[in-house]
């Protein structure tokens, strides 16, 4: 509307050049984004699909068309199912406590605190720490013989745990890294949503004698439902792609432990692509991974919205 109005007022005097500027320049401004995005975002995505239909190794020049061969092979591949199972297990172990903790933390931060900025910053500091650094620090903390965590457990009479050796213990260790890094970030997102909830609701609840926890459950959670769904979906997308933690936790091993006990889908993809250079097979698994993300996110969306509605 703006442009139409001005165009009429300017009239034919400034003519063609001006018209060209008004009509054409918007495309000029969005062009850098779309050109780069087409080249390095969309093209690779589509090309992955093409590669996945071939027997495509980096080590050979010949790429044979095998249709859905890679996909059928994948469904018979125990290592793939193992990686999928590990990914889901780590995702549940990390996401559920993380979001619950974040909710409580946000509830605590949503008060008239002294030193507000300081508390918020200390919540976010784990998130600005790089994922590689987090994985290295926690790998040391989870060390079997000289790790601090085993020492603390020892004070309570618990025997040394060989964290990397077992499925459950390694999943807990990897999940701990994820929880540490992301809880504060999610808490700030919840806090932002909570600040939009009318304060009067809390006032009248207080007058009725509702405890702080009741207020969180009955007022806050229903009010910020869209934000909760948003964080669940975001952590699903992130959780399905976990790679750095298991990779570095296993001393840079591509298999995620001697028996693949903590190899995630992304790590398996990395192993197939850059350990075995089987690009066709790796491409197939990345497409399957994408489908799984879409399905899990959709299921999540369904469950979360139903749960909150009831």
């Amino acid at each position: 509307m703006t442009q139409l109005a001005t165009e009429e007022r300017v009239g034919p005097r400034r003519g063609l050049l001006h018209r060209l500027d008004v009509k054409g320049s918007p495309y000029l401004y969005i062009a850098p984004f779309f050109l780069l995005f087409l080249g390095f975002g969309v093209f690779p995505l589509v090309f992955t699909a093409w590669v996945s239909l071939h027997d495509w190794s980096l080590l050979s020049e010949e790429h044979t068309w095998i249709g859905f061969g890679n996909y059928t092979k994948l469904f018979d591949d125990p290592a793939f199912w193992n990686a999928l199972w590990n990914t889901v297990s780590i995702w549940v172990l990390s996401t559920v406590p993380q979001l619950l903790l974040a909710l409580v933390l946000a509830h605590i931060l949503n008060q008239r605190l002294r030193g507000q900025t300081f508390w918020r910053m200390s919540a976010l500091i784990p998130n600005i720490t790089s994922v590689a650094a987090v994985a290295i620090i926690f790998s040391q903390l989870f060390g079997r013989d000289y790790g601090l965590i085993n020492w603390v457990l020892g004070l309570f009479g618990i025997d040394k745990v060989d964290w990397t050796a077992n499925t459950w213990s390694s999943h807990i260790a990897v999940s701990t890294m994820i929880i540490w890094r992301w809880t504060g970030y999610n808490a700030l997102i919840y806090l932002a949503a909570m600040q939009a909830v009318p304060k009067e609701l809390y006032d009248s609840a207080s007058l009725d004698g509702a405890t702080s926890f009741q207020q969180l459950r009955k007022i806050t959670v229903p009010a910020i439902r869209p934000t909760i769904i948003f964080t669940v979906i975001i952590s699903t997308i992130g959780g399905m792609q976990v790679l750095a933690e298991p990779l570095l936790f296993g001393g840079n091993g591509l298999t995620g432990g001697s028996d693949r006990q903590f190899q995630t889908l992304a790590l398996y993809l990395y192993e197939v692509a850059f350990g075995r250079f089987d690009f066709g097979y790796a491409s197939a698994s990345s497409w399957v991974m994408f489908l799984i993300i879409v399905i899990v996110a959709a299921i999540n969306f369904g469950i979360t919205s139903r749960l909150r509605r009831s």
Partner: protein
Amino acid sequence: MATTLAPPPRHVSPPPTARRRIRRAFRRRPGKFTYLVLTAIGFFSFFPLYWSVVVASQDNSALGKMPPPVLLGGNLWFNLKRAFTMVPFEKALINSFLVAGAITLSVVLFSTLAGFAFAKLRFRGRNILLLSIIATMMVPTTLGIIPLYMLMAKIQWTGTIYAVIVPAMVNGFGVFFMTQYLSEAVPTELLEAGRVDGCSTIRLFWHVVLPAARPAAAVLGMLTFLTAWNDFFWPLVVLTPEDPTVQVVLSTLSAGRITDYSLALTGALIAILPLLVVFVVLGKQIIGGIMQGAVKG
């Protein structure tokens, strides 16, 4: 906290102002317990960072003792020197600064340009294009890694920082963020007036939009820098241990069955430190940016 008693009413029937005061007294006022919980959370937040300093300042024989040392040792300088001689850390730091800096400049510039077009200019296909950008934010980055690597191999960029910079030069979040901001921050009347005076679009962008965009551009820049500095998977795939970024060096340091932890955590410390400095100085703005993005997103 909720059990605090109401202040005794001063009037039999309080006038509106007093009633408001009473209401405010009911509003959750944090007590000692709250600060205790917060301090505990703060402890867990800071501890791993503190721990990296502790381990980085010990030698490995001290780390092989039980109970583990919990105070600083005197080996920090020695470990730092070791880190810089055993892996190309200088090169990695320079690379990381170049990569994160270039990505930040480019994301901010291109996002502001596109954000201006989407927020304030009218053109055919605007809505569908904006929608497609938002949709791209949902696509996992891991998905494109293999063909992206093949592409880089084809144009012989593997092993160079171009391979890390160029694919990250734009992202959907940036455009979305700037579009949201500019649609509120730039008054349409001002642009209209400029048009009447015969301003070309590029001059409007330069003289009206850019100055107005500065606060959001700063926030976007900081968030982008953080992400770019911390990016792990793609640099690991496409760069070599001889010409790495800081995060790639960390993976070199932690490789092997028996990790030299005083060295590895010294590396982690070096990798964290620049961001920590940025965060201490600009933390408030970064937090504001994350919360702002959340409400709109």
